[in-house]
């Protein structure tokens, strides 16, 4: 069951140096109760696309459509979008230290979310609901800590408060924009485990945006890999890690330190991401792609089904049969082309 259906989303900004095309026509679906991991490096447009869905990007030119529960988020009026945000869609952000209002008590901020959408709930009832939520996300002694200020919580605890606030009205979709990047490894594990527990208990669909492939492997069901403003590959988690089709996904996995014995040098993706103002013709990854051939420079590749599995799509002209693709991979490794 598809909860969110995004088709051809485009987002661009006017700057002094020209028009920055941050998102160039991406389409993806999010199923109910499932987690879609969006992975990409900085400047790939992963944050901009989800924040545009929630109408949080200012001064941008947006086109395309995003069907969510019968409402097109892109074309929705501000009041329509506001009725959905916080109630049906919960959001948590990267830096827990600055995402909570410093001058309001934690409980009051959760009560505000509840009463913003449902005036009928009394302040007392909303406060009890807030205490219940804080307990659910694992904050010790919630009935006392509900009246404390954000600065009395540590980084990990604040992220739990953000999750409690996002889950206040039992949304069907939770958008998490790099939720664990600012946290330490041990605290990161706690937050990821909490998100898994929340999904299991409430069946909330999650869009998880991160640059860390480890987090994707940990939590995501489906994965979308973004590069230079477009989705270059989309597939269930295991296929992305064990049978990648697009050279960029393959390059990302190769460059991970864990993939090579200690003495050997790593296998990086050479060059650096293109500028989003004047993109090279053809495939944006062509300049850095080890399999590059002439068609890559002329035509812009489009997402197409590969390996015979319509769940697995890739925007690349390389052969779509598994054996041929694997053969090309072997040649590349022998030639040491990846060096």
């Amino acid at each position, binding site marked *: 069951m598809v909860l969110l259906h995004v088709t051809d989303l485009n987002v661009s900004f006017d700057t002094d140096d020209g028009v920055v095309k941050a998102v160039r026509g991406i389409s993806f679906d999010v199923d109910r109760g499932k987690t879609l991991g969006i992975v990409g*490096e*900085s400047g790939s447009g992963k944050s901009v696309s989800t924040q545009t869905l929630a109408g949080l990007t200012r001064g941008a030119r947006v086109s395309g459509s995003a069907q969510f529960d019968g409402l097109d988020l892109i074309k929705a009026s501000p009041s329509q979008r506001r009725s959905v945000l916080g109630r049906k869609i919960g959001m948590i952000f990267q830096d827990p230290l600055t995402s909570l209002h410093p001058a309001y008590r934690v409980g009051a901020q959760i009560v505000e979310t509840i009463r913003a959408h449902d005036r009928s709930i009394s302040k007392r009832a909303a406060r009890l609901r807030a205490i219940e939520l804080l307990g659910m996300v694992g904050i*010790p*002694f919630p009935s*006392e800590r509900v009246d*404390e200020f954000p600065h*009395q919580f*540590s*980084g*990990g*605890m604040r992220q739990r408060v953000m999750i409690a606030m996002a889950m206040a009205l039992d949304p069907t979709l939770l958008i998490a924009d790099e939720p664990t990047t600012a946290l*330490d*490894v*041990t*605290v*990161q*594990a*706690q937050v*990821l*485990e909490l998100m898994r527990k929340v999904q299991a208990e409430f069946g909330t669909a999650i869009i998880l945006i991160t*640059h*860390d*492939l*480890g*987090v*994707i*492997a*940990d939590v995501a069901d489906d994965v979308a890999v973004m590069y230079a403003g477009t989705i270059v590959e989309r597939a269930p*988690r*295991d296929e992305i*890690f064990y049978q990648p089709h697009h050279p960029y996904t393959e*390059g*990302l*996995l190769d*460059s*991970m*330190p*864990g993939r*090579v014995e*200690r003495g050997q*040098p*790593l*296998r*990086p*993706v*050479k060059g*650096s*991401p293109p500028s989003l103002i004047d993109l090279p013709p053809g495939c944006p990854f062509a300049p850095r792609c080890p399999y590059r051939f002439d068609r890559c420079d002329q035509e812009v590749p489009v997402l197409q089904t590969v390996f015979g599995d319509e769940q697995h799509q890739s925007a690349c002209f390389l052969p779509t049969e598994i054996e041929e693709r694997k053969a090309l991979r072997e040649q590349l490794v022998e030639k040491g082309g990846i060096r």
Partner: protein
Amino acid sequence: MSSDEVLLSASGVSKRFNVGSRGLLGGRLQLSAVDNVSLEIKKGETLGLVGESGCGKSSLARCLTRLYDVDEGTITFDGRDITNLGRRQMQPLRSEMQMIFQDPYGSLNPRRRVGSIIGDALAIHGNRGKGTRRQQVQELMEIVGLNPEHYNRYPADFSGGQRQRIGIARALALKPKLIVCDEPVSALDVSIQAQVINLLQDLQREFDLTYLFISHDLSVVQHISDRIAVMYLGRIVESGPVEEVFTASSHPYTRALLSAKPIADPRAAEQRDRIVLAGDLPSPISPPSGCRFHPRCPKAEQDCVTVVPTLEILRGAGPDAQRVECLHPLEADQDLSSFTPSIADTIIGADAAATGSREVAS
């Protein structure tokens, strides 16, 4: 690859930062950033220093290079005791130990040209190499993979990866013996990270460099280091060759750290036993008594609360021995998640016995 000759050794190094007034608590308020740390770095080796934020690894690095004054302990570099050298005596040594920094945008002066930034060391210590300063700088830019024609550009025109290369070129200018890399790749994307790590390894081979590599990313440290030291709240809790520490870690914190690290391999991630540590890093202003890890340690016992453990040799000898600072170190095959703490006041314990102590934390 690394000879057995020790380039830098520190014994019992401590660093405290003063906080608060003499009128406040009798001037006794202190932040113990580094507490009684001893380690050795062999010539040509890469020692990895890993730990979460706030564990004191950056402070230790700045103590070893004498950017900070040291409160206790001694540091010897290349056979000389540099613990209490004044700024003048340290000057010649500065060219022999250099630092590379984390933030590509913060470590380069935005208002100066790249060429003059890289040439700083030559300007300060006098140009000892052949050719004019400009030629040497352009040669350095070539070595680290930058286009020499960009000599007169400003840092704003370069990407994150290129800026780190400028930082490396600056550190390389006087061919130092030791380079301390403070989280050099943490701010970079994975694909660019790999390029910089390869560059660092090639430079190490070519110029016979010794690295102290600091990071909170275990997989990067595992790849690049020969030996590794794990820090928690200002102390080294475990150290030793990378193979032994990663496969047979014996300190509960190292074991938990290894298990918490997300691996980009779904099947492997599912098989390993997940140990999720409860609680947060305690504030360094007043570290817990006894073993500093006892409030979060799954196998904490009564003596952990009172006795302060010291770094003891577990296996092997000399610099390459595996050392651990724990009264009840784990055996290789023991599974940490099977333990439950036997003392009441650990955070895990505190949940069960909902004593009033929580109120204290308000």
